[in-house]
């Protein structure tokens, strides 16, 4: 048993729902107790979808357990088929459905419906949402794209425009809709046709057409990689390994797809959006070395770490993910920055790590937005899970060159602006520059104070040494340092003093430490 306060991922059947809802003509029959229908609101409220997810629940109750839940499943399946007439059906169980062992797969087979029925085995007590989405998509592809006697062929266009599929986008994904639009445009500009986007917007017939493309573009490995591997094994379709988030990655992505499409490499690097120039513009100097903490799904976290350091000039002070399945990539990326990756799905561990790292900016999920708000740190959301405000009305992809423009705007916005930062530093005692004031561009209001006493959220820091005594003037001087670097200054000074065995921190110690840590 694991104590959970907030969870980063739902159960695996919610992942299956994300795939079913993304598609146009499949229907999912879920053996689940009353109450599991809550998952509908994720789609209709958080993503504001205009249709209910194509899911029928058996909603069994205690009194059904004594009688025949298997019959209930079968009749629910038949009536859902009759009402919705889908091109294909998915059948499976939620966590409680799994326990009663009614075998939806066998029951569905016995029902002998006039459409393909794809059984899903999603172990609820081992796996989570992203895995469930990936497994569901894989099963759909295996069932609907299987062909008899087809030889694997290498993806080479024969006298026609090269053609690819885009894999991995689902319902309830973080900016999936806009990413697909942006990447479709980018591929078109490079003379590559997009045959099928799946699962987002795909029909069952589209899935059957997947093998006709020359190669696959894999946008979200968490969801699409298993299917992409199978397509490669079965039909010889290569798939992309670069996720085009950020300018550098997008350039590499273009090079990769051109290679897979058999096109010449592009020498021209001029059309890369505004990020490169904005980042080189002198007013961006203040971004240099800003301390940033990154947490999210593996794909977005690794990409954000690269963009933050290479394209914004930030300093990475923390990197982690909640997706254990993809932890290796995150560990490697963290190591490259001299950090130890934080691999956890415990919200409280993440909160503690952020508090200890004292970043000036957090790039994370909706959970980290809450953490950052409490700690008074700026935050931008880079990864699912996200809330309703992260489904913006405007076009705002994360991928491609326009995606990089969006990253620029959304990551710089929460920070204190250049000259404002200087003024805050110079005139600490101005009565309007209180620590609780928010940066002026974020509107009026106050910072949320740190961990209120009634809700002790932070465990004591692990390596708390003996408490150093600050002299009154040193303490006062410390307060003149802007709040967003003060914690770091305090900690550095205390470490400096501890290393030298100083009993008291004076004004001199403060500035000695400053000189020591300056580079």
């Amino acid at each position, binding site marked *: *048993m*694991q*104590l*959970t*306060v*907030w*969870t980063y991922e*739902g*159960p695996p*059947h*919610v992942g299956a729902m994300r795939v079913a809802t993304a598609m146009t003509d499949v229907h999912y029959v879920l053996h689940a*107790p*009353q*109450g*599991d*229908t*809550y*998952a*509908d*609101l*994720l789609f*209709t*409220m958080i993503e504001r*979808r*205009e*249709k*209910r997810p194509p899911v*029928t*629940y*058996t*909603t069994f*109750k*205690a009194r059904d*357990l004594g009688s025949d839940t298997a019959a*209930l499943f079968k*009749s*629910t399946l*038949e*009536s859902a088929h*009759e*009402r919705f007439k889908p091109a294909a059906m998915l059948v499976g169980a*939620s*966590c*409680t459905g799994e*326990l*009663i062992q009614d075998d939806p797969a066998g029951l569905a087979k016995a029902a002998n419906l006039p459409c393909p029925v794809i059984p899903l085995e999603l*172990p*609820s*007590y*081992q796996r989570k949402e992203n895995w469930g989405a990936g497994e569901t998509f894989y099963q759909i592809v295996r069932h609907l794209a299987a062909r008899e006697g087809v030889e694997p062929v290498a993806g080479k266009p024969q006298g026609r425009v090269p053609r690819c599929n885009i894999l991995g986008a689902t319902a309830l994904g973080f900016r999936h809709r806009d990413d697909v639009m942006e990447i479709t445009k980018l591929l078109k500009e490079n003379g590559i046709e997009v045959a099928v986007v799946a699962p987002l917007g795909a029909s069952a017939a589209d899935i059957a057409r997947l093998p006709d493309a020359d190669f696959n573009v894999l946008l979200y490995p968490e969801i699409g990689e298993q299917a992409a591997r199978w397509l490669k094994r079965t039909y010889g379709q290569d798939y992309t390994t670069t996720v085009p988030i950020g300018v550098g990655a997008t350039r590499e992505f273009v090079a990769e797809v051109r290679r897979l499409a058999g096109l010449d490499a592009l020498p021209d690097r001029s059309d890369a959006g505004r990020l490169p120039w904005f980042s080189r513009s002198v007013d961006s100097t203040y971004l240099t070395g800003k301390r940033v903490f990154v947490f999210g799904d593996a794909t977005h976290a690794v990409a954000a770490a690269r963009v933050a350091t290479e394209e914004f000039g930030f300093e990475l002070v923390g990197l982690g993910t909640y997706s254990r399945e993809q932890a290796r990539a995150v560990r490697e990326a963290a190591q490259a920055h001299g950090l130890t990756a934080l691999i956890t799905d415990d919200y*409280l561990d993440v*909160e503690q790590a952020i508090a200890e790292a004292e970043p000036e900016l957090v790039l994370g999920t*909706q959970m980290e937005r*809450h*953490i950052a708000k*409490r700690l008074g740190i700026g935050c931008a959301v880079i990864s699912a899970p996200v809330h309703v405000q992260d489904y913006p009305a405007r076009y705002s992809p994360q991928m491609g060159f326009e995606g990089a423009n969006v990253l620029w705007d959304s990551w710089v916005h929460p920070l204190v602006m250049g000259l404002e930062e200087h003024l805050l530093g110079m005139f600490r005692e101005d009565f309007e520059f209180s620590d609780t004031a928010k940066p002026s561009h974020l509107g009026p209001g106050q910072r949320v104070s740190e961990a209120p006493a*009634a*809700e*002790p*959220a932070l465990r004591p820091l692990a390596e708390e040494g003996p408490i150093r005594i600050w002299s009154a003037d040193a303490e006062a001087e410390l307060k003149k340092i802007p709040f967003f670097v003060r914690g770091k200054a305090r900690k550095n000074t205390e470490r400096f003093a501890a290393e030298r065995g100083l009993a008291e921190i004076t004004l001199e110690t403060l500035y000695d430490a400053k000189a020591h840590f300056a580079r």
Partner: protein
Amino acid sequence: MSVHTLPLPKAGCAEPDIIRERGQHEVFCGLTGIVWLHRKIQDAFFLVVGSRTCAHLLQSAAGVMIFAEPRFGTAVMEERDLAGMADANEELDKVVARLLDRRPDIKMLFLVGSCPSEVIKLDLSRAAERLSRHYSPEVRVLNYTGSGIETTFTEGEDRCLAALVPELTDATSEAPELLVVGALADVVEDQFARLFAEIGIERVSFLPPRNSRALPPVGPNTRFLLAQPFLGETARCLTERGARHIPAPFPLGAEGTTAWLGAAARAFGADPMAFRHATAAAEARAKRALQPFRDEMAGKTIFFMPDSQLEVPLARMLSRELGMEPIEVGTPYLHRAHLAEELKLLGSDVQLSEGQDVERQLDRVRAARPDVTVCGLGLANPLEADGLTTKWSIELIFTPIQGYDQASDLAGLFARPFDRKTRLRV
């Protein structure tokens, strides 16, 4: 539709018109009650023993994560717990130890059963007894079920309050005492406390209390008034302790509030003059506040999808005080005895439905095209996209709507969707 024709227990002879259906239920499970109960009882923690789905439900139903560390959590069962590789009780003890260590402010811990814990027959009552012995007297450990196979949405509160009943001390006084049962917003509770005092009912307490150490006593001198219509089990437990139920409509709207307070006043033999003195001005104020809404809403049709069991009292208030016309009043469970006074007021020509087959019910909604449909969050936007106006039912649970001074707020919740439609030009 061939399917949802499982035999249902035949209803009594009185109501041939009630639609009873069995099919997909688009309702929350009883765990959802934790979202408001954990704020109501300020030193209590709700530990769901369940699955990732349970944790995800609470997070999604709560909508916003206001609290960094809320006073609820989920002990998520894993493969090893189910496969018998780990002793579920030992695991639970460890989770509870960690939790209470982190949160020394917690004085009452509810172990809340879920669908998976029910299905594997994890005995939480024994676990609660064991843990209670261990942590007593600092922490009391109780248990109830909020599972979807046993409870629907608000029935979670019913089970929680029922679990509190054995903890109530025996009332020792000879004088009759009034117990108001059902979680109310603090502001509403305070208003009612003032009104009861003015009416002349001196000894009044509320269940649940705001603090677990302030549990009211109960005994043969206790008369209890239900503030919510979904408290069947709690009422039964209180009756077993000797308390007597005061039949009444529920305190929604001016008329409902007067009738509710009046039932208590009569039961306590309060002076009718004192009652009128205490309530007349407030009732008149509520009616005045409702008038503009009546002008706007009279004649509009309304359809209730089953959700909180508040549907019948709401339909009564909206039809009698605002002149709205209920097309169908769906409720997950029709508690005949507790709704007796309400049903008399609502009248027999209103179509009631109990249980749900959501697809067939949506067919009826689309055929009737009501002016407003009260439904859960999963259905609201799809119906809006079909051009129908909706009211989220969950807002009726999360908003103070009871009592005189909230009557117009209640009407406002139903008026706002129309107000919005009128303003929008896009």
